[in-house]
């Protein structure tokens, strides 16, 4: 039972991070390798607001999330929009540079000392007893709930709302969307804002639940493997991929070797790439036309 609870919590964290990858990939076919660093920025935004603005979680958390979303918009406007005509590989490298810059900026301001925002907010993280004898922390429960809420909200938004349809249209064919009067740059910026918001949410929760330090970005790489296993343009696949990878990882920690667990998302990825490269629920890459 404890294992199941562990899997669900880990999968929720992966979903929160993975949402960012899926949204950005669907919008602009770009792999945002800085997603993990956006998560880190979200955590540090929380720390910054707690230490400078207000220690009340009701103010600090929304503010940190807003900062996260704003960072996403800025990233799009300053970095990704100019890369619009360039090959995708170059755009991905730009995200790598972005990750480096974010990490450096954070280290310059906060050094690489580990921080703990939770006590600063006067909150504690008590354990919660689950049926079956398992125990998780209160923030673990919040993580799972947030992931579920975010997924549900995004699903509804993209499938049902007019803006969501336009976002999907702009993601598929930006030029045609422009011809139909859709300002796709605004919609792409919105995708990035949502992706960054999700990452910031993950960062806020992780920083409060575990710890905050500049190396948080590594989790982003693991979530990346998860997003790929599920299919990079499918939110549903993301859930499936997260559950599968989390299961493998938790089982590896418990029964095989804790060090191997860090590599296990990539092993899953390798397997998926060999068998079904587009992931569980992703769309097959288009045929090249001669």
């Amino acid at each position, binding site marked *: 039972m404890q294992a199941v609870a562990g899997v669900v919590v880990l999968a929720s964290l992966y979903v929160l991070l993975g949402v960012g990858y899926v949204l950005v990939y669907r919008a602009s076919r770009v792999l945002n390798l800085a997603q993990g660093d956006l998560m880190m920025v979200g955590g540090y935004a929380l720390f910054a607001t707690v230490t400078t603005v207000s220690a009340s979680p009701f103010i600090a958390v929304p503010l940190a999330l807003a900062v996260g979303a704003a960072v996403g918009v800025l990233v799009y406007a300053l970095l990704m929009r100019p890369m619009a005509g360039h090959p995708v590989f170059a755009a991905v490298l730009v995200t790598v540079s972005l990750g480096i810059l974010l*990490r450096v900026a954070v280290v310059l301001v906060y050094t690489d000392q580990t921080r703990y925002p939770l006590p600063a907010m006067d909150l504690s993280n008590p354990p919660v007893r689950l049926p079956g004898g398992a125990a998780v922390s209160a923030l673990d429960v919040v993580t799972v709930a947030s992931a579920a809420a975010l997924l549900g909200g995004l699903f509804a938004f993209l499938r049902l709302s007019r803006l969501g349809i336009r976002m999907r249209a702009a993601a598929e064919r930006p030029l045609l969307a422009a011809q139909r009067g859709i300002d796709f740059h605004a919609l792409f910026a919105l995708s990035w804002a949502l992706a960054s918001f999700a990452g910031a949410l993950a960062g806020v929760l992780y920083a409060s639940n575990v710890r905050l330090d500049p190396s948080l970005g590594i989790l982003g790489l693991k979530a990346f493997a998860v997003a790929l296993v599920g299919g990079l343009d499918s939110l549903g696949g993301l859930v499936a991929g997260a559950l599968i990878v989390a299961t493998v990882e938790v089982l590896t920690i418990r029964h095989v070797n804790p060090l191997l667990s860090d590599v296990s998302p*990539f092993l899953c990825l*390798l397997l998926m790439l060999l068998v079904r490269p587009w992931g569980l629920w992703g769309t097959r890459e288009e045929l*090249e*036309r001669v």
Partner: protein
Amino acid sequence: MAYGSGYFKTTYEADMALVDTRLRRLALATLIVGLAVLPRVASPFVLELVTQTALAAVGALALNMLTGLAGQISLGHAGFLCAGAFTVGILTESVKAPPLVTLPAAAVVGGLLGLVVGVPSLRLKGLYLALGTLAMHFVVLYVASEYQARWGFNTGVSVPAPTVAGVRFRSGVQWYYVLVAFAMLTTFLSVNLGRSRVGRAWMAIHDREIAAASLGIAVARYKLLAFVASSVLTALAGALWAYYRSFVSVEAFSFVVTIEFIAMIVIGGMGSTLGALLGAGFVTLLPYGIDAVVGALAPGGAAPYWLFPLKFGAFGLLMALFLVFEPLGLVGIWRRARTWVVLWPLRYAPLRTVR
């Protein structure tokens, strides 16, 4: 390719020659003589810089063959370096093998690994391929770290200086000659490959794979060849690195190293041999340049804690700037400058691709 008027080729040999004009032959001769004589006049620090640049150049050229020419995006470069270095480390430590055994072994290991990484390239393209190579990178590093934890010292494996034909390679000057020669050979290989059938096949595959296949190019074979050639060279570079540094550790082969090499070919200019060389020089010398600037502005005292992040950040910033504003890299700047000089006072150059 000669530009400007006044140079006419009258024989096939002249047309296919690698160095065609008299000016170029003179420049090349001067370069070779200069490199040969450098140890007499330069300080050990400068020699060290050139040596490091030469080693980086080999890695950059290998990556350029794979990613720039053949268009196969690889994020596992550090993994190949690590494989070559650890082969040397493991063989030297466990069976005390001499360099004449370890170097070929490193090449073989690198080639095999390249083959393994290259096989997914037959099914995957673009970003998916990059991710496969990234996953491979992590697996290789994990295996290496397991070895290091069990049999090496905690921080790494030490490698004694190699002895070849009775000569012990220990001094900076010796390594300078070895590595610069290695770099020059690799440059020569790279330029010739680019002009050969193999190079043309790679470029065709890069541009439009289906069209290449319909022209009769054995796409699978050439793709695997690109991976193997690149990985063999990189593994050799890693092996030499192990001997040069006398120490091998997993921490030295993190993902950041891969990014550095990719930055080298991106900043230098993808698909171009000259670009790989320029990029290797630029990225290797950048941290020292920043050190020099900071040292000049704030002389004396210990390095402040923000110096390392600053260097790292400058590297990331420069890469982003090049990607956004100068996608053709340093080679693009060089060619624009050259065209401007040649065409002046006319303005527009004819259309041409990077290569």
